[in-house]
């Protein structure tokens, strides 16, 4: 403990340099925690997926639709208890920069099969009764100030829905009851979109409720076999696999984000290491004097390494705190794709450990340099 004062004084020697080093670690840790938050968000949605829901898409891509006539085929498949469907709408609210996800859903069955969409009975009824009604997540409502009774106008984003704007009445604000559903989206009646579609009767994906999760693979295979060799072949997966497929549309996120994080961390490691080495070189005489006074080389090593560790941990705390403040669904418009978006505790701990790792590794070479200094040579350089 009595050496902490020395470590602090050492770090205050060049305040600007210390500040820059701390900030470089802070930025690296902030980026790491933010990128990790993206991956965690996607993974949380995948993990929270229901094991009794399976999703049927066109076998070619999520971007291609299927006819509603598939519904009967799917519903009649043994093991399927319930069925709903949805379309991606892709409308524009005021300006493309105000992005949020909108889904045209078959409202009765969708709300039945997604209990994670939590609505009051009054709001639920109001929504179901209004063909142009919609429900919005409370997070989205907070972001844009939507209230029950408001009118929302969306410009058409996908040409299939014509050219006229769509007007919606906000009939309810839902809460998210699980990571499978975010609170940043808007749901409205599929029929409302379909009746103005230039290609009516098309569905983006079907979601089937199955009775036995253990039979998910068999049911999925049976569904796909029904539509094999038809113009609209399907690919059915568990909801978890559907989420994973959705994530994979962005490419290999783990590799991409991991590579960015690694590059940032390694760069910071070199920056911090170089800064500390400079600091040690400047203090050659002081270190030699301390050795002359009887400080063992191990203590010198710990003092220099401790200084690096302290700067890195302070940087880490700043980085994690900033990430916790900034990386939230309210401030970052990623909630539509990432239902649970934020720096969780495990991520924060990992980021702090990373900062400690940067401090330890960046300090190793300078601390070794300092502890191996030959006293006589170091003193002679000045004398």
């Amino acid at each position, binding site marked *: 403990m009595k050496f902490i004062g020395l470590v602090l004084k050492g770090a205050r020697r060049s305040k600007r340099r210390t500040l820059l080093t701390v900030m470089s670690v802070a930025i690296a840790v902030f980026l790491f925690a933010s990128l990790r938050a993206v991956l965690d968000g996607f993974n949380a949605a995948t993990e929270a997926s229901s094991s009794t829901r399976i999703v049927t898409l066109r076998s070619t891509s999520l971007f291609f639709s299927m006819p509603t006539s598939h519904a009967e085929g799917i519903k009649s498949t043994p093991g399927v208890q319930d069925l709903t469907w949805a379309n991606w709408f892709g409308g524009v609210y005021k300006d493309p920069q105000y992005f949020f996800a909108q889904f045209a859903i078959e409202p009765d069955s969708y709300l039945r099969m997604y209990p994670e969409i939590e609505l009051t009975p009054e709001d639920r009824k109001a929504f179901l009764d209004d063909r142009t009604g919609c429900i919005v997540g409370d997070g989205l409502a907070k972001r844009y100030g939507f209230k029950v009774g408001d009118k929302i106008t969306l410009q058409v984003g996908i040409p299939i829905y014509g050219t006229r704007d769509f007007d919606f009445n906000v009939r309810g604000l839902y809460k998210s009851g699980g990571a499978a559903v975010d609170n940043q989206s808007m749901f409205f009646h599929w029929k409302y979109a379909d009746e103005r579609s230039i290609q009516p009767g098309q569905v983006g994906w079907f979601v089937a409720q199955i009775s036995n999760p253990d039979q998910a693979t068999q049911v999925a295979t049976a569904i796909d076999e029904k539509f094999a060799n038809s113009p609209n072949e399907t690919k059915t997966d568990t909801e978890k696999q559907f989420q994973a497929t959705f994530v994979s549309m962005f490419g290999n996120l783990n590799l991409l984000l991991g590579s960015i994080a690694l590059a940032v961390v390694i760069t910071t490691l070199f920056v911090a290491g170089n800064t500390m080495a400079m600091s040690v070189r400047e203090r050659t005489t002081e270190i030699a004097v301390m050795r*002359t006074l009887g400080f063992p080389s191990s203590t010198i090593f710990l003092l220099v390494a401790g200084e690096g560790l302290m700067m890195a941990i302070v940087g880490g705390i700043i980085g994690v705190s900033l990430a916790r403040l900034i990386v939230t669904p309210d401030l970052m418009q990623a909630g539509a794709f990432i239902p649970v978006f934020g720096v969780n505790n495990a991520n924060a701990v990992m980021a702090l450990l990373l900062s400690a790792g940067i401090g330890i590794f960046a300090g190793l070479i300078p601390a070794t340099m300092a502890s191996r200094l030959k006293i*006589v040579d170091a*003193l002679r350089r000045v004398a």
Partner: protein
Amino acid sequence: MALIELRDVTKTYKRDAIEIPVLDRVSIDVPEGEYLGLMGPSGSGKSTLLNLLAGIDRPTRGSIRVGDTETSSLSERALAGWRARNVGFIFQLYNLIPVLTAFENVELPLLLTNLSKTQRRDHVMTALGIVALSDREKHYPRQLSGGQEQRVAIARAIVTDPRLLLADEPTGDLDAKSAGEVLTLLQRLNKEYKKTIVMVTHDPHAAERATRVLHLEKGTLVEQTPAAVGG
């Protein structure tokens, strides 16, 4: 028995493939309580001799004993511990740590002991009192004059109450008045506090304060003169 006993100490440095002899079979005895001056031209080996006595350098051949300890055979770590307990070193350029106050600079060697914070404070204030700088405890080196800096350095050297003080040109960077104060202080430490002092100097006036002066030339002891003043 002498406090310091050097026997046939030889030191050579290697620069690339060339061996440079610095000290050649030097033998000296320094009794406890002596104030020894070491004089000689540049390159004569006086600072090297001081470094060997301090245990921050090792002889190529020969032995060095200080008190009961054969310092030339100690490990690096043991030598560091021995230095902390037995040697106070005073540098020509003071070598105070600029980011530490006078108090913290003097406290530095005590951080290696098991003393409590209160005990450390008592020791530091006593040392600063001896060098008459108690009122400057919160000053940083840049806020002190050269003479005051050297007195803080002397306080740092005596704060652990070592038996041996080694001074390398302690007045070499000071004006005449400050040099006089520092030399008087060293003389007082020798007489009043019974410190054994070995001082390297170029300055004959400084050497006059020693009780004995040895001359080195080209690494060998050439002359031994009694100091004109001192004793």
